[in-house]
């Protein structure tokens, strides 16, 4: 069983829900999907610097509430993102590893 992933409580964040809704609406209609990777749906503030996560990054971020492992997060996302599970899992792993290394995500037990 993998470790559960949680957001670093020092990171202040919010969802840009209107932007997220617009992107999802466009994707549902099969419109240009470049916005999903280029536009931010979650805003993070870390030590005074502001970052944004794109749609997939933002969804992973929201699911990182300490209750799910990487596999669990990928499972939850499979209903939103229509890609093979293995591919999604690899993407989630890559993202989570990146943010763990930055300290923005932490293992719940650590």
């Amino acid at each position, binding site marked *: 069983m993998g470790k559960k992933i949680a957001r670093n409580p020092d990171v202040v964040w919010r969802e840009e829900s*209107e932007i997220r809704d617009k992107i999802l609406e466009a994707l549902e209609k099969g419109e240009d999907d470049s916005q999903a*990777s280029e*536009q*931010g749906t979650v*805003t993070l503030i870390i030590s005074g610097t502001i970052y944004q*996560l*794109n749609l997939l990054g933002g969804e992973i971020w929201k699911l990182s509430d300490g209750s799910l492992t990487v596999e669990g997060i990928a499972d939850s996302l499979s209903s939103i993102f229509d890609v093979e599970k293995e591919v999604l899992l690899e*993407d989630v792993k890559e993202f989570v590893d990146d943010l763990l290394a930055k300290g923005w995500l932490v293992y719940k037990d650590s």
Partner: protein
Amino acid sequence: MNREISAVSHYIKPEKSITTAPILVNWALTNRCNFSCSYCYSRLEKSEELSTSHARKIIKILVENKVLFLNLGGGEPLLKKDLFELVSFAKESGLNVTMNSNGYLLNNSVAHKIKNAGFNGIGISIDSHKAKIHDELRKTSGSHRRAIEAIRFLKKAGVKVYISSVVCRANFKEFEELVSFAKKQGVERLNMHNYKCSGMGFANKDNLDLTPDEWGEFYQRALDIRSNSTGIIVALDDPILALLKQAKDSPFENGIDNALVKGSICGKLTLYLRANADVTPCGFIPISIGNLLKDDLKELWTTSPVLQSMRNKTPKGKCRKCKQYEDCWGGCTARAYALRGDFNAPDPHCWYNPNGSNKKEDNK
């Protein structure tokens, strides 16, 4: 659906609507002040303060719009009698609240009130390691000593504290000493604010502002000093820093290279509230775009022509030919507006000459 992952969007163009509301709101709770600093932007402003109930309404509006940070200033916020009540309410509502103070009114008892109200941090203004320079700039004898005492009271009470300084002619040559001084005070951060020609800052610009070349030299040196400083964060908040390679090569520091927006963050990530709830893009641009007691914040944020024009600048003057423009986005919009009356004009502090000419007329 798209599955491509980009963990962090390093740069999203400012013309895109990247946030649905400001991240941070600076609020001048009062324009009353026990000081009369040489460069104060608000000393000449007169506006009525809000009642407690109206101020609470403002806080509710900020929370409803998912604003994350509220920074209180003025004037001297400690002069506002309902300050702690308002801050407690803002904290209970989920806001991160900080405050800038000159520290003069801060004693042990006030420090504990600050702690109990739940402030996330307090910025104490100190412009120099030398009391004489600070007291002269602040036009108040003993203000340096009181500011140091304020830091001590706050630290003792368990409040996060940082030092805020305005870079000007009186202190720019002794930046390294100021950093050492700040470290000695045990603060975790030194915020260096660039000189703005607004309010008293405009009236005193000939004596206190630096020349563009001096700004270039100062920032070059400041970045060197910062990179060699340990144990303290040195924040340089000037968008014109994008002109310097060192700033570009220092990601994950103070929002310079990997900041979400280029150029000024005002009107793109932040807004300013006057004491009467008038909304301006920043404290240094005296253009009211509405009033938060009467106008909808989201509407102002998304449709204000003033904010739109700040987010979609058109390079003018030397910026038109400048390859650095895509990094600095014209520098500080407030300075351009204050001295040249045009958001799109080149930042008057800009030392970079895209023509390679030394002629003044080519460098405007």
